[in-house]
């Protein structure tokens, strides 16, 4: 019988050196320590699918056992995943619910639900009315686009008194651009009430602009962000509510799924993967017929509970 710990599981993240994936690494390391499996995380210096593929190519050459990817561009990975599978390597993804060629995709939650949830929170905070704008990191970023699609859909279905002022705005994952674009939005749409962010950099950038223009209380920043990044702005009221899932947990859970599959165990609906929000997972096949594991792992953070997080 093969040793249950004699596996090499590699997490390939979008980008090295950002807070989000630094945190994810903690989860991967926790998993490695707890189980004794050789699990670790790598990433490229630039968030470009091409560099990520290069990393995976080399992992295939290295003959690891499982590769988990947080893709910059999910479809771009299909061929290289196929190659990995052909070489007997298992492939998994996180944040790519439409992925083909994977054993499992692991999602902290359903993107559509998450987007709708963020819109609900914002709408409630704005008393169900007012103008808002949505940001994406890059116009080409799938997850962000899915969230924004869901947000807009939810608003159109449920909040007729709210109004999207312009097409989704790109801030290139850059806080200064988020700041400048928000300034411009505030000038162009004086009745703007809410700014919805998708990338980590939007909320602080937008909140800063709101604060500087003396609009705290009149305009608020919402959206996905880390508590530590948005901390000041939540406290001073420029950012009203942020949402995130804990990357370390996602990292841990993904490794765990990979390990269970490597050991030959079955992943079942309702299983507990050992982290909050993943106590009772659901499994659905995506449109291409590949199974996706969903948790309910999002966290809503406001000025009240932001101190509870150290991330």
């Amino acid at each position, binding site marked *: 019988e093969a040793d249950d710990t004699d596996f090499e599981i590699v997490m390939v993240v979008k980008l090295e050196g950002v807070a989000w994936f630094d945190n994810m690494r903690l989860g991967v390391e926790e998993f490695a320590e707890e189980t004794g499996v050789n699990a670790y995380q790598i990433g490229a210096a630039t968030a470009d699918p091409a560099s990520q593929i*290069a990393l995976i190519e080399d992992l295939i050459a*290295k003959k690891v056992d499982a590769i988990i990817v947080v893709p910059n561009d999910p479809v771009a990975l299909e061929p290289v995943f196929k190659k990995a599978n052909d070489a007997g390597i298992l492939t998994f993804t996180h944040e790519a619910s439409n992925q083909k060629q994977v054993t499992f995709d692991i999602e902290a939650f359903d993107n559509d639900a998450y987007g709708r949830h963020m819109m609900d929170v914002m709408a409630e905070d704005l008393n169900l009315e007012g103008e808002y704008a949505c940001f994406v990191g890059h116009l080409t970023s799938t997850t962000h*686009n899915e969230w924004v699609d869901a947000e807009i859909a939810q608003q159109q279905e449920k909040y007729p008194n709210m109004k999207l002022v312009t097409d989704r705005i790109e801030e290139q994952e850059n806080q200064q651009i988020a700041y400048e674009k928000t300034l411009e939005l505030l000038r162009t749409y004086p009745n703007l009430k809410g700014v919805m962010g998708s990338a980590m950099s939007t909320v602080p950038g937008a909140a800063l602009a709101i604060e500087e223009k003396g609009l705290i209380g009149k305009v608020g920043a919402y959206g996905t962000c880390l508590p530590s990044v948005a901390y000041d702005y939540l406290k001073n009221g420029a950012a009203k509510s942020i949402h995130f899932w804990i990357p370390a947990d996602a990292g841990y859970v993904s490794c765990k799924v990979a390990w269970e599959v490597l050991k030959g165990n079955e992943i079942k609906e309702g299983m507990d993967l050992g982290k909050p929000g993943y106590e009772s997972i659901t499994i659905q096949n995506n449109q291409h017929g590949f199974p996706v594991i969903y948790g309910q792992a999002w966290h809503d953070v406001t000025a009240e509970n932001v101190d509870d997080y150290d991330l």
Partner: protein
Amino acid sequence: MFDQYLKHSRTTILFVMMFGAFIVMSIFLPGKFLTLSNFQSIASQIPEFGLLAIAIMLAMLTGGIDLSIISTANLAGVGAALILTKYALPQLGAYEESYLIFLAIVSAIGISLLCGLANGLLIAYIKVPAILATLGTMSIFSGIAIVITKGYGIQGFPEKFLFIGSGTIFAIPMPMIIFIVCILLMSLILNRTSFGFNLYMLGSNPVASRFSGINNRGILVRTYILSGLCSGLASIIMISRVNSIRPGYGSAYLLQAILVCVLGGVDPSGGYGNISGLVMGIIVLQILQSGFNILSFSPFFKNVVWGLMLILVMILNFYSSRYSQKIRKRMKVD
């Protein structure tokens, strides 16, 4: 003869480096570096990047630069992808499918030629400095790609098309075969045609080339078209390899391609540099990159090594030219 050898001292340094990198990696990664799969991995990564590097090199030979290579590739890829997916119906017969693939390839190439032409016209006729012209067109091309796709990727191409990016012939990855053909063709063009000859002359002194009756504008336009073509070919390999296209794909390649050109001995001020140097530069970079990936080095450490390498080549160059002067002197005295 000795002169000839010295003239190529830069190439020699590169060659030694390439060999050194290879040996070091083989020793430090026993059983992991010297494997067929690793070579296949290296071989399938080099081509698209290599073609982009050639595209930059061509522009550099004229003393310019082409920043729009990635956007050209993206736009060409979007064009091809539109054709491949729009008409890729399941009931398509084998013949139609081949025809479709052919059409897609032709349109990708056509688009990239047009992009190159646009650059060439701006640079040759309106005399916009290349860095500005291509910076502008970079935004225009990728802007068009974004307008067309609204930011969403286009995916799912016919199986046959994927052979270009992922297939192998006698264990040699298809992209590598394309790349080798391109290298050979490009060396032929640069070294053996009058266009290539004139390109080098123009790069080393545009005024004198004008005074010698070289059609500077024509050469410039053709160079940028050729550079566009290389980007187009890269894009075909690229979209086939990843079975999708999305604007922005490959943006990390831009600075890397410039880096590898310079490492490979292309003079950014024009007139000097050859394909063999470039290819060696690419191989050095790829060997180190793959080695570091296998070793799970921090990607930032890779940057340090590349940067150091670049400076090191130049410093060695500096000393070798000093040294060679001394040798010459001694030969003279003897």
